[in-house]
């Protein structure tokens, strides 16, 4: 079982690399290099802040865009090219296919984020001449960003299991935006009454809470993150991913592929 998932994952990773997904690292490197050199000349005393804020925002946005645009094609492309039938004609269960695709794209995103993390630390070293102890929190912020990627990938895969690529992209992107406003939705729950209140409560729990996974600003100011937040955010992300992937598997199992 695990070897079949591993093979599908490895193929997904290879395909992403072949699709030149990792070329975004060049754009990222140029962006950070430009910021590191330029900001010191056009602004005052925010060189470190810009490297962290810009670096981590770019890591997050590049990754989310990759997760959405590769994720939406993971199933539909296989159906379109008819390669899915070849895979499923072998002793591969449908759920293994979904799990393999998820692990493969997640692996691509982790490799991508790791390269970007190296770039962020190199830029930090360039502007500060040395790394500080508080810079280690940047790693925690990147870890949370990776958790966001995993949730986004699971969502893209979920929509891709029953919808067209275009609609899947729209749905996933909308959920990403809504998830970034999770704190505001929470506030809306407190203000609303009756049916609106219950709908808001459902939305709060159904929509992924991306805002809890965004700690870029405090980290940029050198503030630490509690171990509890790391633990509970990890647990939340994992449970949410399992829920979304389970939904994708159920739909995919029932889907008529003829």
């Amino acid at each position, binding site marked *: 079982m695990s070897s079949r998932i591993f093979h599908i994952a490895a193929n997904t990773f290879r395909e992403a690399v072949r699709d030149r997904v990792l070329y975004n690292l060049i754009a990222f490197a140029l962006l950070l290099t430009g910021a590191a050199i330029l900001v010191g000349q056009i*602004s*005052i005393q*925010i060189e470190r802040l810009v490297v962290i*804020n810009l670096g981590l*925002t770019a890591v997050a946005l590049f990754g989310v865009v990759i997760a959405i645009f590769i994720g939406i094609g993971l199933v539909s492309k296989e159906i379109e090219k008819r390669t899915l039938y070849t895979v499923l004609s072998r002793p591969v269960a449908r759920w293994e296919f979904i799990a393999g695709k998820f692990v493969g794209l997640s692996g691509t995103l982790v490799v991508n984020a790791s390269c970007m993390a190296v770039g962020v630390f190199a830029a930090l070293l360039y502007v500060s001449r040395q790394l500080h102890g508080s810079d280690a929190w940047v790693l925690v912020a990147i870890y949370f960003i990776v958790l966001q990627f995993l949730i986004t990938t699971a969502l893209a895969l979920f929509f891709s299991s029953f919808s067209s690529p275009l609609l899947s992209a729209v749905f996933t992107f909308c959920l990403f*935006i809504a998830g*970034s406003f999770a704190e505001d939705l929470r506030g809306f729950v407190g203000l609303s009454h009756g049916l609106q209140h219950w709908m808001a409560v459902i939305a709060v729990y159904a929509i992924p809470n991306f805002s809890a996974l965004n700690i*870029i*600003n405090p980290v940029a100011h050198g503030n630490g993150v509690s171990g509890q937040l790391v633990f509970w955010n990890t647990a939340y992300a994992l449970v949410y991913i399992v829920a979304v992937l389970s939904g994708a598997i159920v739909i995919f199992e029932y889907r008529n592929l003829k």
Partner: protein
Amino acid sequence: MRRRRTIRIAAALLILSCAGSVFLLRLVDRLRENATLEETIYISSPRLLKHLSLGYEGLLADVYWTRAVQYFGEQHHNDSGEYKLLWPLLNITTQLDPHLVPAYEFGAAFLASRPPLGAGLPEQAIELVEYGIRNNPDDWHLYYDLGFVYYDLKDYAKASDAFERGSHVPNAHPFLRIMAAQTAQHGGETRTAQMLWTSVYETTHDPQIRDNAKSHLVSLTADLQCEELEQIVAAYRQRTGRNPSSFADLVRAGMLRGIPVDPTGTQYRLDDDGHVFVSQPADFPYSEKALPSGYVPRRR
């Protein structure tokens, strides 16, 4: 062969059109002066901007802070004396990221400095720094900056209070306590101002703040020297019953060793009323006592 020719033509066209577009853009820019820093803030609500940033408000705050710096620099460079966007830009910056301490420190200096050096809006500078203190109560630099704004307003009681509050913050610089006491007892004295600006000059690592402190110190030194020279003029008047017609009279009377010069090396001047002042008042933007009678700082 034909393919190679097509590639050559396309490559030549590419180079020519790139150069052409740069040339044309420069022409357009010349027609639209100052178009790059338009005096407009398209979205003035920090709350709306915070929402639009999708949680990446830290980066947006950096962008707005850079825009504020660029705007101030541009207006300052052009000597326009108009800084109408400065406060909104600083307000947006600090609302987006309330922990962006440089925006309070430098923003207060930009706002509080008198025109043409700054916006001449000390009340808004106070509001900005007070907001910064509410959000960063453990940063002693902000109390220090607040004290300076009050000091410039000659509100020595509040300046002393700000220094005093700052001295209680953990890891505060020890000179805050001295500054609090000195400001409370000898607020309006030039020597006190000299002490405060010397402390800024010696503690800052920022070249702009250092230049500003140097400019204050040069003006204060001129003030002190003019005060001393006017005392000599008064002594001469007492002795002879008239004002000296020039510094040469004072030298002849043995009251001066030579013609006195200001910190920039230019000779001081003396009017018929015995008032001593600098020859180039524009070089002493913070001077209060060494300026010619009726001198109004010019907006270039």
